Structure formats: structure tokens, C-alpha cells
């Protein structure tokens, strides 16, 4: 069955489902007419290196190549919908085995100004070691971005996706398998779009996988940013941590829902998830719902937690006693809060780049 037929055969998702509790499908569909699949344009894609003196050898983006299948653990509605919308917009990021880059690789995705969809497959060979910044920008009223694929055995990848479209809706789906002994940091920096719905799923189906999922989310005005993260421990000796920081101001709302599934037989799994929300105004709203499903008794640990609160008054006083005026102190604390996860996403070079980006976004929100 092709993607469009599959999508049309499915029922409208139920709000009782963890994934759809806070942002119904109807609100992130491009038109609201659920039977309609838009003709979406292809984005403009550019691959470069942050250090422009580095030649891109062993890494490339191939157009029109049918990529990896969506994992069975992923949501069928969103994945089939984006696949159908992106049938003319299929790409593969192919990375040869043993590829190593000392400076972050940048994949720019410019959505343009009309509805846009892309299905990108990550085909990352074994024993690679690099950092990837995927930056989605543009003025499309609706953007669908699906990533499928596999991180090769023994590879070390710092993978950061930055969503800062001007406005509109961003529907983002990750459906990614982590190879044996691969070490992956999957970062999300989200500070754009009027509405974001992200469904990020990672499957650790082979032993020794090590995954850190990190989020730095900044919402303001009337933005609505909803991220759902699922981590599947299907193999023994797999490790994951989810650390998600959302700073929420104006009338905006952030949602973070997490699901850790540890399958029977995933002995020695070690998993944890934490959601922190910083509320910057009385009207801002933040929800964080971590959930666990553990079917294996012999685990190192499985934990979850949430923390919500306004800016800490003692921290404010400390900074004010050092000459920061009230606004400067608040800005510094918001930046620090988001930086706590940003700094974990990769190298100093990557962090400095991300920190600059974040500061620009903070300045933009104030202007």
C-alpha cells in the first residue's frame, strides 16, 4: 500500500492517545480537512561544513533515493501523511563508514514560502564520528519533516535539529534506529513556528546503544510547541537519558510527553527522563508527562521526573547583587536554563554556535 492509501485507511487519532492528548491531529494538519493531502513543495537543501575549509568527502545528500522504512514503533498517521506529502521530496543523507569530521556538518533546509514536505533518510555507516546540525528555516505555512534511518554500529553522532521557521506549523517526525554500540546525542532546539508537533522515536534494538535526547525549547507570544519523545530499549545493555528544558513566556504553551519502553529481554537497560519547565509569565502554560513501560526486571534503573516553576528569586537576587538589572538578570537566567541542555548536545564548537543562535532568538523575542 502506498503512503497516501495507508494514511486514508487510518482512523482519526484519538485524544486518549498519549501522543495526541494536547495537540489533536486536526490542529497540525495543513488545512484541517483530514482527507486532504497537500501537494507540498520540496525545500531547498544545502550541505556544508561549519569550517568552510573542510571538503565534504564521504558525506552527501542524494535526491530521489528511496530511504529507510518507518519503524513499526512510529505513529502511522503522521509518518504516512508526511511520506505521502513528500513523495516528490525524498532525500538520503549518506555517510560512508569511518567518516570523521572535526567541524560540525550543517544541513540547511529552507522551506520557502509555500507548504513544504521532506522525507530524509539518515544512512550513516559504521564507526563514523561527526556532528550534524539540521536547520529548518523559511516561511512555509506548513512544513512536514520526516527522518527515518539508522545510525551505524559504533558510530558517534551529535545530531541537533533546529526548528526556527518564521511562523506556520511544523510537523516533525523522527523514526530512527540506533546501531550496536553507537553513541548518539539527539538534540532539539526549538524557538520558531506558531505551532510545532514533534514525534521523535528512537529504537535501541541492538546491544550497547547509548542515547542522550536533549531539548532546549523557547516559546513566546501565542506559540504552541508540543514534543513527544519515545525511546525503545529492545536490546540488553542499552542506555538512554532524556533531558528536556522548556522556557515558556507570553501566552504560549509547551508540551513535553515522554515514553520509555523497556522490552522483555532488555537486561541491563538504564533509562531516565526529566522534563524541566520554566514559566516566564502568568499566562504561559507548560505540561510535562513522562511515562514508563518496563517489561524487564533486570534493569540498572528506569526513572522519570518533572520540575515546573517560575524564575528562581534567590538566583535573581544573586545576579542583581552583581549589577545585573532586573531584566538582564531574568534574561541571563532564561539563557542559562536553556544552555544547561544545549551544552550537553556536543563539542565546544557546536555549543558556541548553538549558544549564539539561542541568544539571537532571545534577542528577537524581545524586539
Amino acid at each position, binding site marked *: 500500500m502506498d503512503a497516501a492509501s495507508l494514511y486514508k485507511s487510518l482512523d482519526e487519532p484519538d485524544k486518549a492517545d498519549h501522543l495526541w492528548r494536547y495537540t489533536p491531529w486536526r490542529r497540525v494538519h495543513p488545512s484541517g480537512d483530514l482527507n486532504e493531502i497537500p501537494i507540498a513543495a520540496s525545500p531547498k537543501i544545502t550541505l556544508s561544513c561549519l569550517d568552510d575549509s573542510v571538503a565534504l568527502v564521504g558525506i552527501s545528500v542524494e535526491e530521489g533515493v528511496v530511504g529507510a522504512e518507518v519503524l513499526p514503533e512510529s505513529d502511522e498517521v503522521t509518518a504516512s501523511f508526511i511520506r505521502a506529502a513528500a513523495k516528490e521530496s525524498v532525500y538520503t543523507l549518506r555517510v560512508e563508514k569511518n567518516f570523521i569530521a572535526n567541524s560540525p556538518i550543517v544541513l540547511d533546509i529552507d522551506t520557502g514560502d509555500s507548504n513544504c514536505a521532506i522525507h530524509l533518510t539518515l544512512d550513516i555507516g559504521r564507526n563514523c564520528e561527526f556532528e550534524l546540525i539540521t536547520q529548518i528555516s523559511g516561511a512555509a505555512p506548513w512544513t512536514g519533516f520526516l527522518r527515518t534511518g539508522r545510525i551505524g554500529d559504533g558510530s558517534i553522532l551529535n545530531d541537533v535539529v533546529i526548528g526556527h521557521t518564521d511562523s506556520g506549523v511544523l510537523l516533525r517526525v523522527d523514526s530512527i534506529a540506533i546501531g550496536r554500540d553507537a553513541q548518539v546525542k539527539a538534540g532539539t532546539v526549538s524557538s520558531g513556528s506558531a505551532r510545532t508537533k514533534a514525534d521523535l522515536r528512537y529504537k535501541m534494538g541492538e546491544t550497547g546503544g547509548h542515547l542522550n535526547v536533549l531539548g532546549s525549547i523557547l516559546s513566546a507570544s501565542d506559540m504552541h510547541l508540543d514534543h513527544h519523545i519515545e525511546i525503545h530499549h529492545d536490546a540488553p545493555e542499552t542506555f538512554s537519558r532524556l533531558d528536556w528544558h522548556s522556557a515558556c513566556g507570553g501566552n504560549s504553551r509547551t508540551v513535553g510527553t515522554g515514553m520509555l519502553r523497556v522490552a522483555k529481554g532488555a537486561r541491563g537497560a538504564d533509562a531516565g527522563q526529566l522534563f524541566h519547565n520554566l514559566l516566564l509569565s502568568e499566562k504561559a502554560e507548560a505540561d510535562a508527562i513522562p511515562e514508563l513501560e518496563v517489561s524487564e526486571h533486570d534493569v540498572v534503573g528506569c526513572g522519570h521526573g518533572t520540575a515546573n516553576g517560575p524564575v*528562581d*528569586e*534567590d*538566583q535573581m*537576587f*544573586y*545576579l*542583581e*547583587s*552583581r*549589577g*545585573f*538589572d*532586573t531584566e*538582564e*538578570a531574568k534574561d*541571563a*537566567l532564561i*539563557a*542559562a*536554563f*536553556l*544552555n*544547561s541542555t544545549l*551544552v550537553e548536545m556536543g563539542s565546544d564548537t557546536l555549543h558556541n554556535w548553538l549558544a549564539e543562535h539561542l541568544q539571537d532568538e532571545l534577542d528577537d523575542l524581545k524586539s
Partner: protein
Amino acid sequence: MATDIPVLEISNLHAGIDDTPILRGIELEVPAGEIHAIMGRNGSGKTTTANIIMGHPDFEVTDGGVELNGENLLEMEPWERARAGVFLSFQYPQAVPGLQVGNFLRKSVAAIRGEDEAKGAEFRKRLKDAMTELDIDRSFLGRYVNDGFSGGEKKRFEILQLMLLQPKLAILDETDSGLDIDGIRTVAKGINAAIRGTDSGALIITHYSRILEHVQPDKVHVLIKGRIVKSGGPELALELEERGYEWLEKEAEKSA
């Protein structure tokens, strides 16, 4: 150059928290170039005094005044007081995960001493010299403010800020607590370097006399139940070390 106007003048200060009075008429003057010590038991009002001078929003001043070089501090916000020249070394400095020490110091020096003072080779040299004096490793600059610092590291970091910010008035709240003797010597060296021979003044708040062996105070004041009940020279600290506070508490009760 010393002037007749004291760096700090506290007159008839009454203050409290949530309608509970804590300070009951403090009178205190710290002239330029002098280091004074306030000693007292836990709960006597020492930290409250420090917080009120810095402008902590939880405390309410019900009467009296606090002036810095003749300027009314009580009308200023905490950050305005910092920029006017008040520095408080906290008993328990706040951790700010995510805020790098290097950035924090640059912003703080820029806010208090001006942008020009916070950049260039001269700033870097002052920073390096102060860190060397306090035996602080360069890697410190990449860490987050007080995040995961040991007790001694927190206190040394407070004194590093004191040395860089060069305030008119330094209030050191229990800076010696949690420090071993080497730490006290190092911190004392920093305090002496920042205050002695300058127009600045300092108020050392302490429970013990240990730090006063290394930072010789010009005056020692004893605070009991929100009032200064006795003032004297450095010998008063030694007397308190030998005799404790009970005799003064009895004297205070008699005169109350």
C-alpha cells in the same frame, strides 16, 4: 583619600520579615579604609543586616536609614546598590547552572565598573592575577556559577568577584565558614588586597574570630537580638573567643 563621610552609615535601623522584627535599632559607621567586624550568635540578625544593606526583597525596613557615602541606599534596587558600590559576599552563594563563570564575571564587571573595564588585555590580566592570588585554576572560567563547587571554591569565587568589582563597601557574610585554615589565609589575603590602602570599607560578619586573626579589624561590634550591644577594638573578638556571648547577653538584658 579619606573623607569625613563614612562609607557606610546605619542609623536606628529597624527591620524584619513577615511582620517579625529582627533588627531593633542598629547604629553603625564604617569610615573609609576601615574593616569592621560584626559578631554574634546564630539568629542575632547578622545575615539580616547584610541582606538589608544589599536590598533583599524579603525584608522590610520599618524605621531608620542606611547610607553609602552619604547616599540613601534604601531607595535603590539591589542592582542599583551594586552599581553604587555595595558588594555582598554571600554565606551561601547561589548556583546558576548554565551560566558560565567567565561570561558572568564579564557581565558583572561591565555592569558595575563599565564596559571598558570588562574587556581587553587589562581585564584579562586583572582576572588572571586575582585568580593566581586566590589559587583558582583557569578551568574555573568554563564552569557554571557555583554549580557543583565545593564550599571552599564558592568562598574563593566570592572573593574573586570582590577583587574584580572593587566595591566601595564589601560585606562578607560568614566568608570563613566552611573554609580550612589555608582557605581562610587565602581569602583573607584577597580581602586585605581589596580593602587596605583604599577608600573602601568592609564589614565582616562572622561567628568565629578565626578570620579576624588574618584580617585585623579596626572595630568589632557585637550583635545580640538585633542590637549592637558592645563595640571595641580587635581585642573584643579575642575576649568573645574566651568568654563566649553569655556575659554580654546578661548585660544586654539588664540594660533592656
